[in-house]
């Protein structure tokens, strides 16, 4: 046990006790800060979609709890996926698999401007407006944008799928974005350095300034890569280490991306088989 942890627990227990004592004291039941029902709170019971709960009447503290459902707009969006599941604390997770776009080093890289993509049931939030998202949602898949374009990879036989999972510490928002990437000079994943993997991950990140990142690269024959939204969703689930029932990850610190890159890679490999190579790189940026 960490020094002071037990003493803190005792202190907290006493504070909870004091809260209970005050609940019996009519004088202490002050309506000093009436609860403001947010307009959308009625929808909170509807767990089929992740509503953004705005704090009506909240104080002007600078915070930016917002739902991020952003994606790169450098390529035409082909599909959007959002999936949600329980997290330990108030958190939001958005998977914006904004199509599968080819970013080739041989061509001009597609600009990434983090434009928001409308997902079904979700509205991108203005980051200046405080909003609170529900922290616990059952897994729900939203398939939105129906503007599917044919995937054009006429000459590419091998490529990499880069899945960038970004976490913003201040909002506990996670956003996952995938892109198909081809390394310059047709290099294989084994010859690509960690820095380059991180650079591609950062370029693909759908959070403008993530605090932590996990970049998972799946490399192999193009037809074995998880290119469809469903396959990417499956892969994201495979590396979701928040499954509390899994004894293998029982002792992991779920708040820390950097605990073991190998575990992310191993989990992905189990799901995808041995036909692809996988590398996972984590980064804590910190500010």
């Amino acid at each position, binding site marked *: 046990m*960490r020094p002071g942890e037990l003493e803190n627990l005792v202190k*907290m227990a006493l504070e909870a006790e*004091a*809260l209970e004592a005050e609940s019996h004291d009519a004088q202490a039941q002050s309506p*000093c*800060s009436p*609860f403001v*029902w947010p307009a959308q*709170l009625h929808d909170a019971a509807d767990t089929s979609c992740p509503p953004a709960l705005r704090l009506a009447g909240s104080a002007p503290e600078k915070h930016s709890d917002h739902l991020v459902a952003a994606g790169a707009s450098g390529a035409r969006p082909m599909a959007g996926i959002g999936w949600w599941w329980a997290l330990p604390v108030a958190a939001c997770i958005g998977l914006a698999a904004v199509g599968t776009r080819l970013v080739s080093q041989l061509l001009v890289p597609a600009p990434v401007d983090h434009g928001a993509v409308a997902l079904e049931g979700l509205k991108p939030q203005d980051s200046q407006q405080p909003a609170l998202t529900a922290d*616990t949602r059952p897994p729900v898949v939203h398939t939105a944008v129906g503007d599917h374009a044919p995937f054009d990879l006429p000459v590419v036989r091998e490529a990499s799928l880069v899945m960038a999972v970004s976490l913003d510490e201040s909002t506990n928002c996670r956003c996952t974005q995938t892109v198909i990437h081809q390394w310059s000079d047709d290099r294989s994943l084994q010859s690509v350095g960690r820095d380059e993997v991180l650079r591609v991950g950062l370029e693909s990140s759908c959070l403008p300034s993530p605090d932590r990142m996990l970049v998972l690269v799946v490399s192999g024959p193009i037809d074995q890569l998880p290119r469809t939204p469903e396959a990417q969703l499956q892969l994201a689930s495979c590396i979701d280490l928040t499954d509390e029932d899994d004894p293998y990850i029982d002792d992991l610190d779920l708040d820390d991306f950097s605990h073991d890159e190998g575990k992310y890679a191993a989990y992905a490999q189990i799901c995808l088989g041995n036909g692809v190579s996988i590398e996972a790189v984590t980064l804590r940026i910190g500010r």
Partner: protein
Amino acid sequence: MSATPVNPPRREHETLADLAKAAGAGDRTAFEAIHRRLSGGLYRQFLERLNGRRDLADDLSQRTWLGVWQSLQLGRYDPAKSAMTTFVYAVGYKIWLQHLRSASRGEYGESAMAGLVDSAPDPENEATLAELLEDVRSCLQEGADGGVLTADERGLVRASAQGASDRELARQMNVAVSTLNARKQAALEKLRRFLAQKGHRTKEGERGGRGGE
């Protein structure tokens, strides 16, 4: 024919457990009754932690109550495992910790806040935290949990947690400071073992050790 406004029932005679059950079923007046009873105390606790910053205390309170409502709707509160007050406190604590983490690099100063956040108990969710706190509370109450702590030990642990120094307590109990400190550590060790038996994992345990053993 116009509708006549009706004041919602204040439900002052219902227990918090009953109100929580009703609120969990979507009864907003029940939730408002819980809020009426507990919001004052919660707000004051935030105010103390925030050195009187009312705007921030308001905001954190509001976020706490939103969290409580959502947790109730999602069935995350189990009245058999913790009192409603403990649960509300736990939600508020998680919100507070979240605020600390986001603010630690800024207004509070990183070094000062880092220590606090590091030593803060942080179970994975509010329900787990509430259960942990409920077990600590039961140890600190007379006659509960088979007398894990003696009356003297309970008094010692309580007084220490409330800020009394070892020297001060030693003087009151008419023992040497070293003796007092040994008694306090023994009491905390008893508490730690009790929590481990109840299945609560410490941070150390979550990282691969045997929490509490």
